[in-house]
C-alpha cells in the first residue's frame, strides 16, 4: 500500500515552514512516496524549485497553496488542472493586491468564483473545521462543510485528518470522521508537513520566534509540541491511521486526479504589433536592415551574412517578437532622452547592434561568438538594458507597466535568504545571546561578495561564545540548517517579466514595498526555468554620469557623442596605464588600480580584459598571474590543447570569459548546446553548489572518455570552477569596457564636466566626494565653494575658467524645494546684500546656518562668522524699524573670522568635502618627524623604510588575498597605499577599522609600476576636531 503526502508547507511559507522545497522532494523520494504536494502560505513561491527538484528525484510534484481567509482560518487547496492553477494565481493576486504586504486575506464570498479546478481540504489546526470542533461545536463543523461543499462541490472537498500525537486530537479526529460520514465526504490523511525530517522542528521553532519577535525561553506554547510534522513513510502513516484505511487510499486516488504540471503554464511573450500585412519576422528583418545601413554605412558581405544567419535563427526559434519589443523599449528611452545600453547573452549579435540595442559592433571588432548556442534551446535569449539610475530608470519601468498593464507586467522577486549574518542574528535573538556576541560575530565576516573563510566554530569562539556555553551546541547545529532558507521576498533590482494576456494567471502577483510596483512571486532564475522571459532594466550610476556629462558638454558648446569618440585615444590609455582612474567606471577600485600599471592597456579589448580580470572568479581560479605574466612576456602563452587555440588565443591561452569556458566544454567534452547552457546556469553564482558539482562530474567524465590526460582535465576543471562563483561573460565585459573607456575619455578630455556630473550623482562608485574634489584639483580643475549668488542646485562649470562650482546638492540637509525657491527669488532679482538675502529667502534656520558656515554667503560681504552672526537674528523684523542694527549686521560682527582648521571642519560638517586645503596640509606641521607625502614616495627606493600618514579613504580585505588588508591613505599630494599582513591586522583590527586618520610605517615595495608600503606599525592620528571624509570599506 502506498501513500501520497498531500499537505506539506515549505520554507517558502516564510517563517511558517522549515525545509527548502528541494529538501522536501529529496526526503519524499527517500521515503518512497510517489508524489508530494507543497502548499505554501498564500502563494506558490516555492513551486518552480519544488518542481525541478521533484523531477530530479523522480517523484511527482503537486502544487497547491494554503489560503489565509478573512476570519484568520487557513484553507488548503490543491490544483487539479490548468484552470485550477490559473484560478489559484488570480485568486491570490486579487487578495494580495487588495491587501498589504503583511495582510492579504481571501474573502469567503470570492472563493466560488475561482473554485473550478481546485480541490479543497479542511485543513489542520488552523483550518475552519478544526476550529469549530475544538469547541465541540458540531453544528459549526456542519456549517463549515456545507459552506465548502457549496463552493467546491462534492467531488472537490476532502475532510482532512492529521495525527501529530497530541492529546487533544483523538476527539477531533473522531468528530471529523463522524461529520465526513454524515456528509458522505471522503476523508484524507495528511501529515501537515512543516519540515522534511524531525530535527526540522527546531528550525521551525526558531522561525516561529522570528515571526513573533520573542526568544525561545519565553515563546512557551508558540513552539512545537513535538517533532511529528515531518515527512512520513507510507508505513508510518498507515500505522497512524490504521483505524481509517480509506484516509490513506484516498491520498492515492486524489493524487491521480491532480494532473497539473508547471511544464505547461501557457505563458506567451507579448506580440509586437506590426504594421498591417507584415509578420513579426518580416518586421524584424526590415528594421534590422534599416538600422544596419545606418550603423555600418555600407553593408559588407560579411555583415550581411552574419545578419542573415542571426535573423534566420531568431525567426526559427520564434524570438522575433522579443527583439522587437526590446528595440521598442530602447527607442522609447532614446526618444525620452534617456541613455540606454544593452548587454547580456543575446547582446553580442549584429542584430542587436543594428537595432541600436548595443554599441559594440561584433563584426567589426571580430568579437563574435556563437551565442545562440543551439537550435534546440528552449529558453529565451537574454538582453539586459543598463539605464541611468534613479528617476530616469523608474520612468522606463513605469512605461513598461503602462504598456502591458498592472496584471501584464511585474518585477521579478528576489528571495532574501538567511545568510551568515542574518542567520546568526536570528538564532542569536531566539537563543537570547548577548547583542555584543552577535555584533562581534557579524564583524568577523569578510566584506563584499568575497567568500568567507573562517570556520563556524572558530568564528563563534572568536565572537566570545565559549565552547562551554550552554547554548553553543544549539547554535552550532541550528546555523547550517537555517542557512540558505528563505526569509522574505524582496524585489529584484531591475528584472521585469511581461506576458501576452494576463500575467496573474501564470504567477501570483503582489504589491512591492515601493508604491506603484507589482512583484511576481518568483525570482528571475525561477522565471527562466519556466521559460518566462524577462527584461532587466538596471540602473547604473555611471550611466547617469555619462548622460549628464554629455548634456553639460552640449550646453557648453563642446558636444560629444559617446558612440563616435575615438577608440584609440592615446591620452586616455596613458591615464589608464598610470592608474589615474579615480571616478572611472569599474577600473577605479583598489585592486584594479594596482593591476593597470602591469596590464598597460593599449586598446579597447585590453580594457575589456582589465574589467574581467579583476574579478573574484579569475582570482579564485589563479588566472590573474598567468595572464599578466604572459602579457608582459615573462611566460609563453600555453593552450591546454591545440583545439583550444582559436578559443583562447585572444586571452593568451587563459580562459577569462564565460563564453570561452562554454566553448571549451563543447570542444573538449563534446557538450551539446543544451549541456553548455546547463553549465552556464550552474555557473550563475547563487545557485546551489550541488548543481555545479554535477556538471563538473559530467565534464570530467566526458573529457576522460575522449582520452584527455588527467592533468589537462584538472587544469581545465580548475579554470572552470572559478566561474562557478562569479563568472563574467565577454558580452558584459565589452559593455562595461565601453562605459569604462567612455568615462576615462571624458575624464581626460572633458574633465570639469565629468567631475561636476560625478559630484551630482553621488553617492556612487568607490570614492567619496571629498576624494573626487581632491583628484580634480590634481588634474588642474578648480572647485569653487557653494555660493548663494552663483550656485545652482547641481554642480556647474564656470564659463570663465572651467572651474567646477559646487551646487546646493552637496550641502547636507538642504531641502531641494527650498533651494529651488531660492533660485527663483534670485532669478527675479539678484541679492544686494546679506540682509536682502535673509529677508527674501525663506530657508530653515538650520539651512541658513549651514550655508553661512560654508561661506556660501561670503559673496554678499563679510566672512563666514559675520554671516553666522546675521543668520541668528529673528526673521520677522522689519528692516526699516531697525535700520541701524541692520546696517551693523550687514557689514560686520563682533566675531573673529574662522581660521583654516575651523573652515575645514565647517566644510566637512556642511558637505563632507572641502574646496580648501587638504586636512593633511593643516595637520602636517603637527606630525612627527619624517613623515613622507604620497608624492614623495615616487622617489623612494625599494625596501626603504618610510612613514606615511593620511585620511583613510579605502580599506579592503579581499577574501582571496589570504587575509591581507589594503589601505589607501590620502594626503594633500595624493594617495599612498599600504598592505597589512593578517597577523598585524588582527592585532590592530579596531585601530585600522575605526580610526579616520592613520600613521603607517614600513618598507616601500615597488613592483611593475605600483608602490606599496608594507605596514609594520600602525597608529591612529589623534588630533581633536579633525574633519574626515568617509572611507569606503570592504573589511
Amino acid at each position: 500500500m502506498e501513500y501520497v503526502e498531500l499537505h506539506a508547507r515549505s520554507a517558502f511559507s516564510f517563517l511558517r515552514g522549515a525545509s527548502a522545497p528541494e529538501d522536501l522532494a529529496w526526503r519524499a523520494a527517500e521515503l518512497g512516496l510517489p508524489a508530494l504536494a507543497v502548499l505554501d502560505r498564500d502563494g506558490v513561491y516555492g513551486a518552480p524549485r519544488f518542481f525541478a527538484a521533484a523531477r530530479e528525484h523522480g517523484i511527482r510534484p503537486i502544487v497547491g497553496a494554503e489560503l489565509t481567509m478573512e476570519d484568520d482560518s487557513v484553507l488548503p487547496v490543491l490544483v487539479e488542472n490548468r484552470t485550477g492553477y490559473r484560478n489559484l494565481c488570480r485568486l491570490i493576486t486579487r487578495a494580495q493586491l487588495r491587501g498589504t504586504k503583511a495582510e492579504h486575506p481571501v474573502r469567503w464570498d470570492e472563493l466560488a468564483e475561482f473554485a473550478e479546478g481546485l480541490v479543497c481540504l479542511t485543513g489542520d489546526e488552523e483550518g475552519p473545521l478544526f476550529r469549530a470542533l475544538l469547541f465541540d461545536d458540531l453544528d459549526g463543523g456542519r456549517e463549515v462543510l456545507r459552506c465548502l461543499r457549496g463552493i467546491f462541490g462534492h467531488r472537490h472537498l476532502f475532510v482532512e485528518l492529521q495525527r501529530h500525537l497530541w492529546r487533544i486530537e483523538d476527539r477531533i479526529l473522531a468528530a471529523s470522521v463522524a461529520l465526513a460520514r454524515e456528509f458522505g465526504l471522503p476523508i484524507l490523511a495528511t501529515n501537515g508537513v512543516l519540515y522534511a525530517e524531525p530535527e526540522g522542528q527546531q528550525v521551525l521553532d526558531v522561525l516561529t520566534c522570528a515571526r513573533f519577535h520573542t526568544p525561545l525561553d519565553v515563546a512557551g506554547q508558540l513552539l512545537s509540541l513535538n517533532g511529528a510534522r515531518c515527512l512520513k513513510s507510507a508505513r508510518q502513516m498507515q500505522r497512524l491511521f490504521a483505524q481509517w484505511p480509506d484516509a490513506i487510499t484516498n491520498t492515492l486516488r486524489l493524487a491521480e486526479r491532480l494532473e497539473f504540471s508547471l511544464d505547461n503554464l501557457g505563458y506567451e511573450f507579448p506580440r509586437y504589433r506590426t504594421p498591417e500585412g507584415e509578420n513579426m519576422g518580416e518586421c524584424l528583418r526590415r528594421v534590422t536592415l534599416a538600422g544596419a545601413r545606418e550603423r555600418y554605412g555600407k553593408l559588407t558581405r560579411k555583415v550581411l551574412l552574419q545578419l542573415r544567419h542571426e535573423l534566420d535563427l531568431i525567426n526559427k526559434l520564434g524570438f522575433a517578437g522579443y527583439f522587437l519589443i526590446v528595440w521598442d523599449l530602447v527607442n522609447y528611452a532614446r526618444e525620452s532622452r534617456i541613455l540606454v545600453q544593452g548587454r547580456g547573452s543575446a547582446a553580442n549579435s549584429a542584430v542587436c547592434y543594428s537595432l541600436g540595442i548595443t554599441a559594440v559592433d561584433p563584426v567589426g571588432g571580430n568579437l563574435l561568438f556563437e551565442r545562440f548556442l543551439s537550435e534546440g534551446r528552449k529558453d529565451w535569449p537574454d538582453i539586459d538594458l543598463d539605464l541611468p539610475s534613479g528617476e530616469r530608470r523608474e520612468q522606463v519601468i513605469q512605461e513598461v507597466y503602462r504598456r502591458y498593464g498592472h496584471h501584464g507586467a511585474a518585477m521579478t522577486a528576489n528571495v532574501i535568504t538567511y545568510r551568515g549574518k542574518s542567520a546568526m542574528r536570528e538564532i542569536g535573538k531566539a537563543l537570547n545571546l548577548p547583542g555584543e556576541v552577535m555584533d562581534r560575530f557579524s564583524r568577523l565576516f569578510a566584506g563584499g561578495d568575497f567568500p568567507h573563510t573562517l570556520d563556524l566554530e572558530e568564528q563563534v569562539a572568536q565572537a566570545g561564545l565559549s565552547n562551554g556555553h550552554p547554548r553553543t551546541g544549539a547554535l552550532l547545529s541550528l546555523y547550517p540548517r537555517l542557512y540558505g532558507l528563505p526569509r522574505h521576498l524582496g524585489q529584484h533590482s531591475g528584472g521585469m517579466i511581461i506576458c501576452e494576456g494576463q500575467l496573474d494567471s501564470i504567477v501570483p502577483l503582489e504589491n512591492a514595498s515601493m508604491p506603484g510596483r507589482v512583484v511576481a512571486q518568483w525570482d528571475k532564475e525561477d522565471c527562466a526555468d519556466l521559460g518566462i522571459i524577462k527584461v532587466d532594466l538596471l540602473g547604473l550610476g555611471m550611466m547617469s554620469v555619462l548622460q549628464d556629462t554629455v548634456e553639460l558638454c552640449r550646453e557648453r558648446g563642446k558636444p560629444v557623442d559617446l558612440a563616435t569618440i575615438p577608440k584609440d585615444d592615446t591620452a586616455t590609455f596613458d591615464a589608464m596605464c598610470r592608474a589615474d582612474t579615480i571616478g572611472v567606471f569599474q577600473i577605479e577600485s583598489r585592486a584594479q588600480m594596482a593591476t593597470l600599471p602591469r596590464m598597460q592597456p593599449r586598446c579597447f579589448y585590453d580594457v575589456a580584459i582589465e574589467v574581467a580580470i579583476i574579478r573574484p572568479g579569475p582570482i579564485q581560479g589563479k588566472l590573474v598571474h598567468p595572464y599578466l605574466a604572459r602579457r608582459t612576456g615573462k611566460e609563453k602563452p600555453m593552450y591546454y590543447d591545440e583545439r583550444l587555440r582559436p578559443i583562447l588565443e585572444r586571452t593568451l591561452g587563459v580562459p577569462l570569459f564565460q563564453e570561452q569556458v562554454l566553448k571549451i566544454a563543447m570542444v573538449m567534452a563534446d557538450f551539446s548546446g543544451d549541456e553548455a547552457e546547463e553549465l552556464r546556469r550552474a555557473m550563475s553564482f547563487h545557485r546551489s553548489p550541488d548543481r555545479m558539482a554535477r556538471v563538473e562530474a559530467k565534464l570530467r567524465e566526458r573529457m576522460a572518455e575522449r582520452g584527455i590526460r588527467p592533468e589537462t582535465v584538472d587544469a581545465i576543471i580548475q579554470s572552470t570552477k572559478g566561474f562557478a562563483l562569479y563568472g563574467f561573460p565577454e558580452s558584459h565585459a565589452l559593455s562595461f569596457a565601453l562605459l569604462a573607456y567612455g568615462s576615462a575619455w571624458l575624464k581626460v578630455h572633458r574633465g570639469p564636466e565629468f567631475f561636476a556630473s560625478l559630484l551630482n550623482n553621488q553617492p556612487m562608485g568607490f570614492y567619496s566626494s571629498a576624494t573626487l574634489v581632491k583628484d580634480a584639483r590634481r588634474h588642474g580643475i578648480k572647485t569653487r565653494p557653494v555660493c548663494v549668488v552663483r550656485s545652482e542646485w547641481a554642480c556647474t562649470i564656470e564659463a570663465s575658467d572651467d572651474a567646477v562650482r559646487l551646487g546646493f546638492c552637496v550641502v547636507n540637509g538642504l531641502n531641494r524645494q527650498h533651494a529651488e525657491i531660492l533660485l527663483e527669488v534670485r532669478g527675479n532679482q539678484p541679492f544686494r546684500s546679506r540682509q536682502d538675502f535673509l529677508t527674501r529667502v525663506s530657508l530653515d534656520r538650520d539651512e541658513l546656518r549651514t550655508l553661512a558656515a560654508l561661506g556660501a554667503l561670503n559673496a554678499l560681504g563679510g566672512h563666514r562668522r559675520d554671516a553666522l552672526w546675521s543668520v541668528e537674528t529673528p526673521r520677522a523684523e522689519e528692516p526699516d524699524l531697525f535700520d541701524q542694527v541692520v546696517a551693523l549686521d550687514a557689514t560686520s560682527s563682533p566675531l573673529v573670522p574662522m581660521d583654516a582648521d575651523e573652515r575645514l571642519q565647517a566644510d566637512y560638517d556642511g558637505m563632507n568635502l572641502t574646496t580648501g586645503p587638504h586636512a593633511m596640509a593643516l595637520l602636517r606641521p603637527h606630525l612627527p618627524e619624517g613623515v613622507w607625502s604620497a608624492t614623495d614616495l615616487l622617489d623612494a627606493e625599494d625596501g626603504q623604510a618610510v612613514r606615511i600618514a593620511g585620511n583613510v579613504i579605502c580599506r579592503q580585505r579581499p577574501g582571496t588575498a589570504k587575509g591581507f588588508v589594503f589601505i589607501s591613505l590620502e594626503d594633500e599630494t595624493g594617495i599612498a597605499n599600504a598592505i597589512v599582513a593578517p597577523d598585524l591586522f588582527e592585532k590592530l583590527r579596531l585601530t585600522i577599522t575605526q580610526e579616520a586618520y592613520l600613521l603607517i610605517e614600513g618598507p616601500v615595495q615597488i613592483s611593475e609600476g605600483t608602490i606599496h608600503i608594507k605596514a609594520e606599525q600602525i597608529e591612529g592620528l589623534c588630533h581633536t576636531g579633525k574633519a574626515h571624509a568617509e572611507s569606503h570599506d570592504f573589511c
Partner: protein
Amino acid sequence: MPSPSSSKIIELRELLAAKYPAIPQKTTGYLPTEVAPLDVALQGGLPLGGMTEVVGQAGSGLLLATLIRATHQRRGLLALIDGGDAFDIAGVPRSALSRLLWVRSPTAAKTVQAADLILRDGNLNLVVLDLRSVSTDETRRISASSWYRLQRVVEPTTTAFVVLTRQPLVRGARPRLMLTARFGLNAFDCRQQDLLGRLHVELVRGQEEHIQRIA
C-alpha cells in the same frame, strides 16, 4: 439561563416538599453543586454551615472539577485543601483557576490545621478538603476531636465544607455520600458535564439525623 439540571432540581425539590411536608426547609440554605444526582440526594445541594463527606473511588475527581467550575460560574470563591498535593490544574478550565485557592499540604496534620484556618476565616463559599491521596494510615491518625472541632468551626458560618475521602472517615459528617462510577477510556471523548450523569450517589447518613442533632 438556568441549566436544565438546575431547573430539574427545583422541580424535584418542590415535589419532595409536597410529598414530605414534615421535613422543614433548611434555614441556612444549600449550595447547589450542579451535579444532578448529588443535588437530588442532598435535596438541593451542599448544606451551608455544614460538613459533607463524599466517599468514593471513582467520580470524586469529576465532582471536584465540577464544584470548581460551578463556583466560578456563580462568581464565588473556593478553597481546595489538597491533602496529597495531587490536584492537576489542567483538569479545570483556566478561567476558573482565579477563584480557586489551592492549598497544598504535605501531611494530614497540616491539612487539618489548614482547613481550620480557612473555615475560621469565613470568606470562602466552599471549602473542599481532599484526602483521597493521603494514605489510610495517615488519615486514621486524624483524631475524632479534630473532626468535631472542624464541624463546630463551620457551623456558624455560611460556608459549605466538603471532605473527599476514599473510605468513610469523618465521624459525625452531617450528610455522607457514597459516590460510585465506572469509566472507560471513552470518557475522554465526552465533556465533563456529560459524564456527570454516570455518577451514582447514595446518601448514607442524611439530613434527618442532622436536623435531629440540631434540635
